[in-house]
């Protein structure tokens, strides 16, 4: 019995700004989780700190609003301890690509089976609009007194170079498309990164909904006119991100190269959709290879004591014998 979207909502008061792109992402997550066919208790949402970080409180599943930049290690810990859980982590661009960058980079090395959704708004929202790592140099959103002095980093490209097995970009105002991406990400067996273009109308007046969608104000009439949308869908352009045969290194290289070029697009044309996907053993499978018990019972549920007496059921006698001297 699949959940309905409304069952996934909470009555916790939402305090995002009116018109925030975050709402679209929240809706997409609600829809994707509903579409998953799981129950509320089987899902655990994790987040960092920021406007984005509050998300789990509005999703009626187990929710963990953790620390700034640290959503990933928390989420990974939970998933590895109980692989039966569906684990989704959300966070901000400052959160994930700035302070959390060491985890961002090194998580690619593990391919833990979780989905990571980054709310990419170019600013530190909750601390009042300082430049985030994705804001380009020279740009001056209204929250900055002076143009941004730092270059942006390119999270999708970095992910591609860091072992990520599912790399996608969504747009918060294309909720259905984003929902599909999230579902694909969750169903991908491995680490899925979904960077979401998320307008922050309060602080970022450059990367706005209008900008992404090419809506301009007619100078004469002041009316809003549809121009050329910047955002376009990869799948509609005939782009195929999926590596069919991971053992075929040529194919891998080809798919990576085309994805690399796609990660470089910005400005007039901004691709959304899946950029790259490959099948690789996830971390759980790798652990199970070392430790066969892992495939059978999750650490969170592994029995280690007698429930009636409280006595340990673990026997270390063989080990102690190794150390025995008399």
């Amino acid at each position, binding site marked *: 019995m699949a959940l309905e979207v409304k069952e996934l909502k909470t009555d916790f008061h939402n305090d995002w700004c009116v018109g925030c792109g975050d709402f679209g992402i929240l809706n997409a997550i609600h829809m994707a989780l509903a579409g998953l066919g799981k129950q509320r208790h089987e899902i655990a949402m994790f987040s960092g700190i920021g406007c984005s970080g509050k998300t789990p409180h509005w999703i009626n599943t187990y929710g963990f609003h953790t620390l700034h930049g640290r959503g990933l290690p928390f989420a990974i810990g939970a998933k*590895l*301890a109980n692989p039966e859980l569906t684990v989704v982590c959300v966070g901000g661009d400052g959160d994930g690509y700035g302070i959390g960058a*060491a985890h961002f980079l090194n998580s690619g090395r593990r391919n833990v089976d979780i989905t990571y959704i980054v709310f990419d708004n170019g600013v530190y929202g909750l601390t009042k609009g300082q430049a985030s790592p994705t804001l380009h140099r020279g740009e001056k959103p209204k929250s900055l007194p002076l143009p941004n002095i730092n270059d942006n980093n390119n999270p999708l490209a970095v992910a591609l170079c860091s072992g990520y097995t599912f790399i996608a970009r969504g747009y918060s105002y294309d909720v259905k498309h984003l929902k599909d991406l999230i579902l694909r990400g969750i169903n991908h067996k491995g680490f899925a990164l979904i960077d979401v273009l998320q307008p922050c109308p309060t602080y970022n007046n450059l990367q706005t909904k209008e900008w992404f969608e090419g809506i301009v104000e007619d100078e004469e009439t002041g009316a809003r006119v549809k121009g050329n949308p910047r955002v376009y869908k990869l799948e509609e352009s005939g782009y195929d991100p999926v590596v069919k045969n991971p053992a075929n290194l040529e194919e891998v290289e080809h798919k990576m190269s085309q994805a690399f070029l796609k990660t470089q697009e910005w400005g007039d044309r901004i691709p959304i959709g899946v950029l790259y996907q490959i099948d690789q053993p996830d971390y759980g499978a790798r652990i199970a290879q070392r430790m066969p018990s892992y495939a059978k019972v999750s650490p969170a549920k592994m029995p280690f004591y007698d429930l009636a007496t409280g006595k340990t059921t673990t026997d270390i006698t063989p080990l102690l014998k190794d150390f025995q*001297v008399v």
Partner: protein
Amino acid sequence: MEYLKEIAWLIGGPQGSGVDSSASTFAKALASGGYHIFGGREYHSNIKGEHSYYQIRASDKEVRSSVNQVHMLATFEEETLHIHKGYVIPGGAILFDPTLVKETDIGRKDVVLVAVPYMELIKQIATEFGKEKDVQKLAVMKNVLSVAASLALLEYPFDLIAKTVESFFKTKKPKLVQMNVRGAEIAYNYVRENYAKSPFPYRLKPIPVPAGEKRTFLTGTQAAALGKIIAGCRFQTYYPITPASDESEFLESHPEFGCVVVQCEDEISSICMAVGAAVTGVRASTATSGPGFCLMVEGMGWAGINEVPVVIFDYQRAGPSTGLPTRFEQGDLKFALNAGHGDFPRIIMAPGDMDEYFFDAIDAFNYAERYQLPVIVLNDKNLANSTKTVRWFDYSGAKVDRGFLLSDEALAKYIKSNGNGNGNFKRFHFEENGMSPRPVPGQVGGVFWNTGDEHDEYGHITEDPDLRLRMMDKRMKKLETASKEIPLDKKIKTYGPKDADCLVVTWGSTKGAILDAMEDLEKEGIKVRLLQICLINPFPTPEVMKELSQAKIKVGAEMNYSGHLCGVIRENTGIAMDSMILKYTGRPMKKDEMVDALRNIVKKAEKKVVLTHGA
């Protein structure tokens, strides 16, 4: 000729040259002859080449510390000879390589100088085994040779040596068993032949082991890891750091217990991953040392406000900063006690011997789950890297206490009896004792939230001042509950007579040197009582007050500059110590300097003694 009840032997050499294995071999040969062993290891923050040394003490009674003066010094190069020759008791022995140093240059006429022509003996072995060409490679055998030579001087039976060498090589390098046993024999015979008539007075012979007593020979990290296994720890994170990583690597090399060990990208990840795991109900832990612990503070605070049971083993080493990364200090106490902005409850334990390393690990997880908070266990480099014979761990009495963790059935029942309006769970339900029933993700009806922000009973963010007040009170209340529930013998331990001349207060592994010293001092007629604070937080104030108020002289003894525990005691009791024994050279306190210090305090009322022994 005298059969010793107790002996101290030291071997040194460049790091990576086999000093550790020699020492283990020596120790195990004696241990299997019924002796109690304490082995203390000193080494540089270096991979190969720097001077390291290992002191083995063996005795018919338990030994728990090193001493300044040894009976025998085994060397095979000059540096060790140079550094340690002054620390052999008159009448003791020094083994040296006559091809490197002239006997007369050693400058110790009061000890027996045993010239061991290592390479000559090795050549002989090589020849026997048809490996003349490999003589250079076989130079590592110096280690086995020096051990055998040492024991020969002591006339210790060769078969026990042979057995030890055999079992050592059997697991590590089975091909080399025969050659090494033979090597030992050659060295043994060489010394017996050439030094049978030396004035060296000491002899050692196997002694009986009490019937039914079984002993293991372990390091502190091994004892701790074994404790964690029994405790049910099934998730351990770490980032490599001396001396903590040994514990994690030990766990990792025993996948048969099902403990997932994750090597993280840093200690921030280590703590956060452990906490993330802990919320799912697994018993989760991380192990680190000072620099790594610095990076765990924020994550620990999150566990604090969210009442997540997580266990942190901090293997203290000498700080500040990178400090002396392979040396010992008890310098993290106040940091552990106060790490984090804002108040949140934590339990801090300080095990002081191998048994406590093992059993405290079990208690740590019980406390963490019962009181739903982070537990910090303050281990240290001293015991982590020391080896000791310990009575077979009898964990049959150990009990698992998961506190208010709900089984699926209990959860269903609880929900039924409490009503379940919106299908969510009050994870932080206000409870008298501070602890709320606790479901885990995956359980039906248990959906709750966690947040680093102040929260309501469901775990949702709140900024309401009244809820905040009550949540703070609730959380902190747990420490009061813990204070009431934790039994006395887990809070403090006392040793020695009540009417002692002085009361020494200590924590952690420094206990070893004090207990050893107490035995000596007793013979001098000085009676010392030891108060070991096992539970640092919540601090056992009334229990400590009682002991302090009965003391004639109150002495604080700890391995740091400022007297951390002394400060904590005064903060909690108002009572200042009369004297302090401190050491911060990075080397553990030795029995003999502890004896001197205590004697001076009792006899000369010294106020502060700073110890300095150890190269």
